[in-house]
């Protein structure tokens, strides 16, 4: 599904963002990507959704090989992924409903099918009642739910989440995390980058830890340990 083999990624100004990273994420898995800021979590995600090219090594994502990806394949790859960020990245001048519908429109989905699909995911994230609200009228947790709904509406096989709870208070964090767990339970793989170790400890999921660009711990391969490093 997602396979990194001896992946190196150089910073444009020199130095390595990733050093010899290898792992394999199977269909339907839930994986935490942990590590300090700057350890390379976001870089791993960016390589997965082809925002940046691989320097060396191989990245395979749901049938696509990053090295052979042509520019016009990138949108096709992204339609199989759902991506969620710390800062939500919603369009401020569109309602929740329009934000979600937007993701369907850009992929050329049939117009008549859009409203029903949008309402279904908004219901799934618990925001059906606020479909007409603009992002500024929603709390952080609600905005992140809209972003998750937008990520889900194309029925991706993988949901990538880059610090999705980074901007949320504790209660909203719990809600969003539970939502991600539910999504995973219904069969979608989730890769969640986070440095919230409380969340990581709460759940029995696989943990991949990065340190200065190197993979230092993978709970699927290495001995289990008490907690991720401080």
């Amino acid at each position, binding site marked *: 599904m997602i396979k990194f083999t001896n992946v190196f990624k150089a910073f444009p100004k020199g130095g390595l963002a990733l050093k010899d990273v290898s792992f394999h994420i199977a269909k339907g898995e839930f994986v935490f990507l942990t590590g300090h800021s700057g350890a390379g979590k976001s870089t791993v995600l960016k390589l997965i959704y082809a925002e940046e090219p691989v320097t060396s090594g191989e990245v395979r994502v749901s049938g696509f090989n990053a090295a052979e990806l042509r520019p016009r394949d990138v*949108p096709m790859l992204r339609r199989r992924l759902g991506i969620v960020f710390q800062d939500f*990245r919603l369009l401020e001048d569109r309602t929740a409903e329009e934000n979600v519908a937007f993701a369907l429109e850009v992929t050329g989905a049939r117009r008549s099918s859009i409203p029903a699909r949008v309402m279904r995911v908004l219901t799934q994230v618990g925001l059906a009642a606020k479909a007409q609200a603009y992002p500024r009228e929603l709390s952080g947790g609600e905005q992140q739910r809209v972003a998750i709904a937008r990520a889900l509406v194309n029925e991706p096989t993988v949901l990538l989440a880059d610090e999705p709870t980074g901007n949320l208070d504790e209660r909203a964090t719990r809600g969003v995390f539970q939502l991600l767990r539910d999504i995973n339970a219904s069969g979608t793989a989730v890769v969640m980058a986070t440095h919230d170790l409380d969340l990581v400890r709460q759940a029995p999921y696989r943990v991949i830890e990065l340190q200065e660009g190197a993979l230092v711990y993978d709970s699927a391969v290495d001995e289990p340990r008490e907690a991720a490093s401080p």
Partner: protein
Amino acid sequence: MNLTVRESLIAFRRAPLLSALSVTTIAFSLFVVGLFGLVAVNLQHALQDVAERVEIVAYLLPGTPIESITLAEKDIEAFPEVQSAAYVSEDSALARAHAELVEFRDVLQELERNPLPASIEVKLKPRFRDVDHVNEVADRLRGFGFVDDVRFGRDWVEKLDRLRGIAAAVGLVVGAAFAVVAIIIIGTTIRMAVLQRSREIAIMRLVGATNGFIRRPFLLQGAIKGMLGGLVAIGLSYGAYTLINRWLIHAAFFSKEQAVAIVGFGTLIGLFGSAASVGRHLRRV
């Protein structure tokens, strides 16, 4: 409604101020180009009017039989450069002098004999009204045996030639400069509109929009802005033209084709300006 069209119109609705600002900027840039165009068009008209008076007069020897003259007139009219050749008899020359030279009426009245020669007045086709062609035709006219003298105001034609050259050079240089300035200003305006939506472009890319899909609404929008700007510019030019016409001088306005060309120019700049800005954006993000 088509999605591209809808997305383009949404931008006008969501950012009405910026849209109005770009259209206004485009309109005034093109207005400046248009004003210069008006000057050029009118200058050209004026020069054409002056050139209209380029005339070669062949004075005939007295006593030339009218048959030879009629034949010569036909010959001359068959020259490729010649638009018309008109015979003016001694009598009509005198009659014209009476009518035009009012101050000398008394002198003319007292004449015992008509001193004015008969002549053939030759007008050239518009594109041959320059020194070289005038000289050539004059030489050919001298070849007729009964032609006494040929006059055509050489200095005057030469000056006209020089004036035309200067007008063309100034028109080309200043016109090109104005056009370049308009392109730069309009390009910058369009770029601002694209930059304002860079976040949206990034999000579109994230959810899997193809570059073509992202680009299309911007292109349409740029073209619409350019076209509206062009139309407003024509309106402004027409206003300026009306004022000038009423208070200053009688002037000419653009022909329909020239007006369409200005609007088309605006549309194209809008289109290509958008293409360039969005293209840069799609490569960078």
